[in-house]
């Protein structure tokens, strides 16, 4: 807030916002928690991954859900401390730029954009599939790459982009209500499933076993890392809880706590629901080709029966809509941040004069998402859901991993000052980053055998019989490239030449120096665009 009294003139000093009278920053711990959990979208995440995790690791899904929590919790420490240093940040892009350098920072920003793009086809398909299930059109819903599901998926992206562009927001109370309903429905589903399993008479049901939580039961290690990469995705999004900085009452502390709490809430949901899901009809039910893509619908129908299964479908849809918004908004803001710091063309920072949204970035992201979604449906029919979700783990591991390393780098002078520092600023972020890197590398080898990814056969578009089965036979088998690898790692790699070209043409951003934390507690000086020498 800026106040000028009496005379004409506008100061542009924002720092004293809270001190000058008008109250700002009303968003506390609960709201941050809600934002973190809603962004992670538990119902949608389960709908998208539960079946596929079981494909790779069988009854060990709950163990994978637990294991994937470890690197995410460790990276949460990195978010927490980087956020304390840099509360008015653009997250990973600015942090990595600050700590490791502009080239790596640019790639981290690219990683965010690519990861956001990769998830869009999955979100759109899930939205399409569950919309048709909601209205009982199961035949249409079962063809997840069919014309009608794709059509609804495209409409979904367009509507969500418009909502972000115009800036329509639900009230805080509505958000709490929707999220509360989502969590209660998931827990009810789990409790009812388990109660019915224990009362007997359910076909192929199995009683939960502690061995399901034992990660050493998972073989081979490639399957474990594939499952882990999938499960990492289900925790993706809670980082939003630490980036709602300035809204929090104490912006340097509350958001980090909200992120930690939201992770714990999510952990409970994921482990309990995955245990209940596989108990009910066994793993075979979840992994058969009819159910693997929309496992929550199949199980919801079996466990809850009609019409109560609609509750679960609605929970998945509200969850997917929150998740779509929390994909488009940060994607647009990331590209805005990059443009503000001259790492992308200026237009990406354009603000719509009336709606005050990052107009150009938002529309472009929506448009690219639609093109990408339709292209993927044409190229890889029948396995859009599978391959997009498998590919996603690479992007997440990439930029979360970088965030972990950035924390260690940035605080390197303080890591050995005390035990607490060592554990939370050094060890945890480092371990998290190393785990994600190892997952990334193992998964590359694992997916490089196309046998380990889903491959499609039929294209709904009659003139294009161009599909991954064809590609496998002619290219991938020899060169060893599965679709998730091409999508996940390929898109990240495309960033490299783009970055180098941008660096040659617009060197300003890349002349930035690395920084190191002076203290652990005090905020770092803002990473202002003005610091960079402007040469373009």
């Amino acid at each position, binding site marked *: *807030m*800026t*106040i*000028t*009294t*009496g*005379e*004409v*003139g*506008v100061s*542009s000093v*924002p720092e004293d*916002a809270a001190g000058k*009278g*008008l*109250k*700002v920053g009303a*968003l506390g711990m609960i*709201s941050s928690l809600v*934002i973190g959990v*809603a*962004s992670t979208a538990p119902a949608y995440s389960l709908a998208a991954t539960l079946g596929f995790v079981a494909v790779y690791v069988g009854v060990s899904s709950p163990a994978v859900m637990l294991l994937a929590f470890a690197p995410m919790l460790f990276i949460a420490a990195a978010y927490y401390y980087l956020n304390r240093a840099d509360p*008015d*940040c*653009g*997250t990973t892009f*600015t942090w990595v730029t600050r700590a490791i350098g502009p080239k790596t920072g640019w790639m981290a920003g690219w990683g965010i954009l690519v990861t956001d793009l990769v998830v869009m086809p999955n979100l759109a398909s899930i939205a399409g599939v569950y919309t048709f299930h909601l209205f009982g059109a199961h035949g249409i819903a079962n063809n997840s790459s069919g014309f009608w599901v794709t059509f609804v998926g495209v409409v979904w992206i367009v509507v969500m982009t418009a909502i972000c562009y*115009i*800036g*329509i*927001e639900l009230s805080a109370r509505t*958000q709490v209500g929707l999220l509360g309903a989502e969590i209660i429905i998931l827990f009810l589903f789990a409790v009812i499933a388990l109660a019915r399993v224990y009362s007997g008479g359910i076909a192929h049901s199995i009683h939960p076993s502690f061995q399901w939580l034992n990660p050493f039961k998972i073989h081979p290690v490639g399957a474990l890392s594939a499952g882990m990469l999938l499960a990492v995705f289900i925790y993706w999004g809670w*980082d*939003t*809880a*630490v*980036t*709602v*900085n*300035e*809204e929090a009452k104490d912006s340097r502390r509350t958001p980090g706590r909200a992120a930690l709490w939201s992770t714990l809430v999510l952990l409970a949901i994921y482990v309990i629901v995955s245990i209940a899901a596989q108990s009910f009809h066994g793993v075979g039910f979840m992994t058969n080709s009819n159910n693997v893509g929309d496992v929550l619908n199949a199980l919801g129908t079996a466990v809850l029966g009609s019409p109560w299964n609609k509750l679960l479908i609605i929970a998945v849809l509200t969850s997917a809509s*929150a998740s779509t*918004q*929390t994909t*488009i*908004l*940060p994607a647009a*803001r*990331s590209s*805005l*941040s990059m443009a*503000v*710091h001259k790492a992308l063309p200026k237009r990406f*920072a354009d*603000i719509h*004069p*009336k709606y*005050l949204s*990052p107009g150009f970035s938002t529309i472009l992201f929506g448009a690219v998402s639609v093109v990408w979604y339709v292209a993927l449906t044409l190229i890889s029919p029948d396995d859009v859901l599978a391959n997009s979700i498998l590919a996603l783990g690479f992007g997440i591991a990439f930029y979360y991993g970088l965030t972990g390393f950035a924390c260690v780098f940035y605080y390197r002078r303080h890591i050995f000052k005390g035990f607490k520092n060592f554990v939370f600023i050094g060890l945890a972020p480092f371990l998290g980053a190393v785990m994600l890197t190892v997952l990334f590398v193992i998964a590359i080898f694992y997916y490089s055998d196309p046998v380990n990814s889903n491959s499609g056969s039929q294209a709904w578009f009659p003139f294009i019989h161009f599909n991954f089965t064809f590609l496998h036979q002619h290219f991938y088998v020899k060169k060893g490239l599965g679709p998730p690898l091409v999508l996940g790692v390929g898109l990240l790699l495309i960033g490299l030449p783009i970055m180098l070209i941008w660096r040659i043409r617009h060197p300003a951003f890349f002349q930035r120096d690395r920084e190191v934390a002076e203290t652990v507690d005090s905020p770092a000086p803002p990473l202002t665009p003005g610091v960079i020498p402007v040469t373009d």
Partner: protein
Amino acid sequence: MAGNIVLGYDGSDGSKAALAVAVTVARAFDAPLSIVFGYEPNPMGGETADYKSKLERIGDEMIGAAVAGAKALDPAVVVESLVVPLRPVESLLEAALEREARVIVVGGTGERPLVGAILGSVPHKLLYRSPVPVLVVPAGEE
């Protein structure tokens, strides 16, 4: 400072019309005029920092133009500019409370009631929530 005239300004035609009326009202009551621009990115999605500073700059420019406009209409009027990091309605209510405002002046949205209903219209919300009188000025009023 008390008894201010609080004006919501967003650069729209309605708000320009409201500016002219607000200056007249301020003059009539011999009260200071507080011109308010409110902005708040949806906290969903995070990564608001650079976005916020960009919005703040837009707000500064917009209010700068409004202050100049007010001075051009009446050089004697006492003007205060407020760029508030809250949603428009909240920022107006906050400013009204803080300045013990006599009246809040805003521009009308014109003949698009359905759009207002869907997107949420600032004057509409103010009419329900404001503790002080609200003056809604139709666009085109000079």
